[in-house]
């Protein structure tokens, strides 16, 4: 079969998924050429709303990048539009000439429907379809006080409206029908949704017939039939889509609303397949992703001559607007032969409605509380007879059978192909079968063998529940989690024993606490080294061989083995002299990338390891020291300009930030420690999501702690108020020392605080002056040994061996 030529027109989600299936089963069956009108690879179009809202970046939604296509030998011709198909000669034509095919796949998707009113072509009128639209909308939202009118109150229009509102625009939604999302929602749920969106400051105008878009050079306003005028800098048309069928029509294929296809995804020409939003199958066009993926599977099989047939299934809808929970599935129109069950809880904003016919669920609409959505949907698909549970049906799965609520029941009920770990793409079936095959009983075991919960860790709870379901009593999550495979002891016991038995070296710890391995492992060694540094600052000799490479060479290793370097900029302040020195270093060492970090400093990336000491020498001459951007230790103190410059500033936040950073730099902590000081409650330094933050107010300083803005997002807890800068520094240092002495290695302050209890921390730091003073004194003592700039040490020759090869062996010597 090799060297059959497959030409694919359209590089969207449907064709991307089809190529995946094709390469999985028959990687060499075809030479593939892929044409895409958009000048970029394939991305997850349904996730454009979160990109518009600023909740995700474009890179996060890319599904197939250039490397993927290259790896699979696909010839990509992005930005090149196919203008004609010659079915006689089996070629497609573009501006670059003709390309021959044996099989052709049309996956041109759909085009936004633009309502034919005056002014529809003015600049400022956009659809919401691709990344260019998103970029244009983000641009428009950047203007202060900018106004947007979204035409269309369906799924797409409302996602656009909510996202634009999040970006600060004044937003009006115009909707032709009597209530929002009429295809998915009944009037009651539509009303609840409207109230919610209005509560966010979005104006909703239903039964709105657009008459014209007004404006001379660009869109300025939208005029309705009833005479209402809404000013608009941006008009978003989101009234629907129509299948993009032009090349199919021109080449004489059978086209009705979409390109007509049979169950095998073949068009009226058997050598031409079509799939995705551009096709019509048994009088239906599809716009949701699940059926498109089913088509992709079928098309891939048809291409390699396997049998398969597309069978449309019911799909459920969810609105991707953060904070709105909405679920609808099936058919929920009223009718004489239909019954309904409705649950309303106005104060909780919950509305649930099931439509039944002959004791089977026909449709479901859930608003405000949707956790039973997939359970209802499952019964809908299976056509379950619900007469036995009808009385309690609306209350959901947990109320069936009278069994007590079991948190693992939901996990047990998931189908085998449900994805548990999104980072590594591991589904439930894989985890369960691996637990059984390998006889795994620990979370670490599951991580090692399946990679689930091995990256970001947010699915850990689910994985643990799965283990419980699979193993039953054999799984004991309450047992102390050992530090690592080298010891049965947990972090707390190890820390306690280090102090009580006065253990002062790694070999001593391993000997006394009966380590099972001779030299530990890459998990326990850095932890022990930190505990010893923290507990015996004056006596313990830091063991560099037990530190992760970044802390050993004082730079951040990158994926290609080069390093990045971040010098300290105290409180985020810099000067022309410093910037000039950085510019000179970048030029001198040909540093390929320079980037501003989130902590108000400058990162130089792509430096060769051998160059590091010379780079530091030049930076050191300009007065720079290491920013410790690689350390489990104090990173940055972010500040706003405070009373020095800002008309709202209540205190010298920049000055306090610089003082804190100068006092605390160099200290090692269980995990990284990021701080911020804001000069007023407007909080421009974002102190309320930091490990430790300070908000200045007229009467003093409000100290915050235990925030997070990484894997988890969590606002800070308030520690308390102090009157003076000196107090603020003392309290912050005492809190840091308490964390240093009690935290588990790699445990961020918010996790430590949750484990210890916020009140207990407030009691020790705010209420118990003697305790606070003791913590503070121990911190000051420890700093005496910690505040040595590691870069200048290495410029003067320390650890030279780290940066140079030991030897160079020439070919001759080897032979």
């Amino acid at each position, binding site marked *: 079969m090799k060297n059959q030529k497959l030409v694919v027109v359209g590089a969207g989600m449907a064709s991307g998924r089809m190529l995946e299936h094709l390469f999985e089963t028959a990687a060499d069956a075809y030479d593939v050429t892929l044409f895409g009108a958009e000048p970029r690879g394939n991305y997850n179009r349904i996730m454009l709303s979160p990109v518009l809202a600023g909740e995700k970046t474009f890179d996060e939604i890319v599904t197939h990048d250039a490397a993927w296509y290259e790896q699979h030998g696909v010839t990509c011709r992005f930005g090149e539009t196919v203008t004609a198909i010659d079915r006689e000669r089996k070629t497609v034509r573009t501006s670059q000439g003709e390309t021959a095919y044996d099989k052709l796949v049309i996956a041109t998707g759909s085009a936004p429907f633009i309502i034919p009113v005056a002014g529809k072509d003015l600049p400022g009128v956009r659809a919401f379809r691709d990344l260019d639209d998103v970029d244009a909308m983000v641009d428009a939202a950047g203007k202060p006080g900018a106004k947007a009118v979204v035409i269309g109150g369906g799924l797409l229009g409302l996602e656009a409206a909510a996202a634009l509102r999040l970006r600060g625009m004044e937003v009006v939604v115009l909707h032709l029908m009597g209530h929002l999302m009429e295809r998915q929602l009944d009037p009651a749920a539509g009303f609840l949704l409207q109230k919610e969106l209005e509560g966010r400051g979005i104006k909703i105008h239903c039964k709105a017939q657009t008459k014209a878009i007004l404006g001379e050079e660009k869109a300025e306003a939208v005029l309705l039939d009833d005479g209402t005028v809404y000013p608009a800098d941006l008009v978003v048309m989101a009234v629907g889509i129509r299948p993009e069928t032009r090349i199919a029509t021109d080449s004489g294929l059978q086209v009705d609303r979409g390109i007509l296809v049979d169950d095998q995804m073949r068009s009226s020409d058997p050598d031409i397949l079509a799939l995705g939003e551009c096709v019509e199958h048994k009088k239906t066009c599809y716009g949701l992703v699940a059926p498109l993926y089913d088509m992709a599977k079928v098309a891939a099989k048809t291409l390699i001559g396997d049998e398969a047939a597309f069978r449309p299934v019911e799909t459920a809808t969810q609105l991707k607007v953060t904070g709105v929970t909405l679920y609808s599935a099936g058919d929920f129109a009223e009718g004489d032969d239909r019954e309904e069950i409705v649950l309303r809880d106005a104060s909780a904003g919950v509305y649930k409605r099931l439509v039944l016919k002959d004791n089977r669920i026909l449709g479901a609409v859930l608003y405000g509380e949707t956790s039973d959505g997939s359970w209802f949907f499952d019964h809908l698909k299976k056509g379950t007879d619900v007469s036995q549970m009808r009385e309690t049906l609306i209350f959901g799965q947990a109320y069936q059978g009278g069994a007590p609520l079991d948190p693992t029941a939901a996990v047990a009920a998931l189908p085998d192909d449900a994805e548990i770990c999104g980072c590594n793409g591991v589904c439930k079936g894989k985890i369960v079968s691996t637990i059984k095959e390998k006889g795994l009983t620990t979370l670490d075991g599951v991580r090692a063998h399946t990679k689930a919960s091995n990256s970001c860790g947010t699915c850990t709870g689910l994985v643990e529940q799965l283990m419980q379901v699979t193993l039953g009593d054999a799984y004991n999550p309450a047992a102390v989690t050992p530090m690592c495979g080298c010891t049965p002891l947990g972090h707390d016991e190890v820390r306690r024993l280090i102090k009580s038995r006065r253990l002062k070296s790694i070999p001593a710890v391993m000997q006394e606490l009966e380590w099972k391995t001779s030299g530990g*492992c890459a998990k326990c060694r850095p932890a022990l080294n930190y505990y010893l540094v923290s507990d015996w600052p004056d006596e313990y000799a830091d063991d560099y061989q037990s530190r992760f490479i970044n802390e050993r060479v004082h730079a951040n290793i990158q994926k290609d083995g080069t390093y990045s370097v971040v010098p300290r900029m105290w409180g985020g302040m810099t000067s022309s002299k410093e910037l000039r020195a950085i510019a000179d270093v970048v030029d001198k060492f040909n540093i390929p990338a320079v980037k501003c970090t989130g902590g108000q400093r400058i990162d130089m990336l792509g430096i060769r390891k051998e160059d590091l000491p010379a780079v530091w020498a030049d930076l050191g001459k300009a007065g720079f020291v290491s920013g410790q951007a690689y350390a489990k230790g104090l990173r940055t103190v972010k500040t706003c300009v405070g009373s020095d410059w800002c008309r709202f500033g209540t205190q010298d936040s920049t000055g306090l930030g610089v003082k804190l950073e100068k006092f605390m730099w160099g200290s090692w902590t269980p995990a990284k420690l990021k701080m911020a000081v804001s000069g007023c409650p407007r909080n421009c330094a974002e102190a309320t999501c930091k490990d430790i933050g300070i908000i200045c107010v007229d009467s003093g300083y409000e100290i915050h702690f235990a925030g997070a803005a990484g894997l988890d997002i969590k606002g800070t807890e308030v520690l308390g108020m102090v009157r003076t800068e000196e107090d603020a520094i003392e309290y912050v240092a005492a809190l840091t020392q308490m964390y240093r002495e009690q935290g588990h290695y790699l445990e961020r302050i918010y996790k430590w605080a949750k484990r210890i209890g916020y009140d207990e921390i407030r009691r020790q730091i705010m209420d118990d002056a003697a305790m606070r003073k003791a913590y503070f004194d121990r911190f000051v003592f420890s700093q005496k040994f910690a505040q040595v700039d590691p870069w200048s040490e290495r410029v003067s020759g320390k650890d030279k*061996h780290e940066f140079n090869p030991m030897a160079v062996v020439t070919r001759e*010597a080897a032979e």
Partner: protein
Amino acid sequence: MNAETRNWVEIGELSDIPREGARVVKTASGCIAVFRTADDEVFALDDRCPHKGGPLSQGIVHGLSVTCPLHNWVFDLSTGLARGADEGSVPVTAARVDNGKVLLAADDLARRTAE
């Protein structure tokens, strides 16, 4: 082949390598990581993790193993085989210490060049 009949290339002093650490030897066909254990044994592996190309010389050395700094794969220093559940291996170059000098096997070096 045993140590007596093999040819060896001297690359430096044992004391050049930190205990539980590694140094890099550059060759015409890529870098070799030369490891020194806590017991002063030496081992040499290609300085390239089979997973994502991480430099093994930068990893933490523990017992007779090294952990890759990029994604924590663990390799047996004597066999080059991945430990635990990961599957993969790194080419080994025979290494020994003689009179305080670190030596690498010439035939292994030559084989790397030839490949």
